[in-house]
């Protein structure tokens, strides 16, 4: 009874306020350094035209990186390639219209949903990003960042949705 309590106390003291910690130190490395982001094209979340990246998620990642004083190193590929690299630790983050129902759940740590929209089939899609498994400090930082902007993202998606509806309604 006394030993576990002692262990917990030591862990807490030793780690100070640094709970959670990244086993591989992702957040420390990214801060003021390089954030390696994998991207699959998915309209309207992440797009690429003429060498320029745009979309809701691209902007979010850019702002997140700016907050950490980090430069982004982009990698393009299919979801399968990107999640494989994420799992092996060669990427820090994967984006591109990933939802909570993605089959890649075991290869990446999904953030909590930061936007929920209705798909064309009328199903609820919960949009997430995927960090590397177990890098909980980095994941937590990203979660905080996204949740603080949940309202803002929702409003923006609504505006874009209306715009789109107008366009398709008046050809």
């Amino acid at each position, binding site marked *: 009874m006394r030993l576990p309590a002692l262990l917990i106390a030591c862990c807490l003291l030793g780690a100070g306020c640094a709970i959670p910690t990244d086993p591989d130190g992702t957040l420390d490395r990214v801060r003021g350094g390089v954030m390696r982001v994998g991207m699959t094209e998915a309209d309207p979340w992440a797009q690429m035209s003429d060498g320029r990246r745009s979309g809701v998620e691209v902007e979010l990642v850019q702002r997140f990186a700016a907050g950490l004083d980090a430069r982004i190193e982009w990698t393009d590929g299919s979801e399968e390639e990107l999640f494989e690299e994420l799992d092996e630790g060669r990427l820090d983050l994967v984006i591109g219209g990933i939802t909570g129902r993605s089959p890649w759940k075991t290869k990446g740590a999904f953030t909590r949903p930061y936007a929920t929209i209705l798909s064309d089939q009328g199903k609820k899609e919960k949009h997430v990003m995927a960090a590397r498994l177990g890098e*909980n400090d980095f994941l937590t930082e990203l979660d905080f960042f996204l949740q603080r902007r949940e309202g803002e993202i929702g409003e923006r998606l609504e505006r874009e949705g209306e715009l789109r509806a107008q366009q398709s309604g008046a050809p």
Partner: protein
Amino acid sequence: MNEAARHFEMPSDKMAIHRKAVRLEKVTLAYFATAVAVVFAVLGSSQALKAAWIEDLLAFLPPIAFLIAARVRTREPDARFPWGYHRAVSIGYLFAALGLLLLGAYILLESAMKLATAEHPSIGAIELFGQPLWLGWLMLAALAYTGLPPVWLGRRKLVYAAELHDKVLYADAEMNKADWMTAGAAALGIVGIGVGLWWADSVAALIISVSIVRDGWKNMKAATGDLMDERATRYDSNEPHPLIEEMRSLLAGLPWIDEARVRVREQGHVLQVEAFVKPADGSCTLEHLDDARQRLMDLDWKVHDVVLAPVKVLPGEHGEAHD
């Protein structure tokens, strides 16, 4: 209905305890319903938390078995079930134990696999009341809620189990009592993840699952033994029931009896007794037999169904099962 299997089962003081036990099991069900909901709400990718959650789910089985058995067991013997329905309790016990064993094995395998493939558990954060909060802290709070109250429940049930000679209740009490260890191990796993030790979680889950498997195995053995008509044991299945020897020496002590042997099996709460007696001068009267049977029944409320057979040679002397 034969007179040997009297309908009246427990003395009134035991009935009062049984009613308390029924109430306690209902409280247990209500409590675990909330506990399961609370842990499910914070269930992330922590293996240890999942193990603790499954153990909480399993905690439903013994109370349900107990409550069902409590309704069925007092039905009177009929043409189809001449020994009555007491064994409903033993069957409930077997199901509870099997569930324990299977799920323990499942968690054991899954945790070992996760450890072997070095899967890093991920726990993110949520915003609570405008404050960012790491989910791990919520998990620890949930574990405290599921780990502490069952210890009290278990202690109470242990007392009732001994009074009522009830093995389902005993298995349930043991499980509840072990709950703080499960919650503690899971908490260590979460703290481990927090400080960056990804393996701590799976190791904690492994430890929990080993304890679940051990509980399951022990109870399976006891439950199968009951259904195999194992010689009656005490409520904790650790030693032969003391009444067996008491009954034998009571019979052997009667002046008209030369030697006696008893076979006792359990029918849920109560004992079913077959006694063989060798009359001293080779014969006995019905009055003798009736008197001996009454003395056995008066020993303890658990002595419920007694068959007394005068014999020339005791069955055990030919290598048959005895006492």
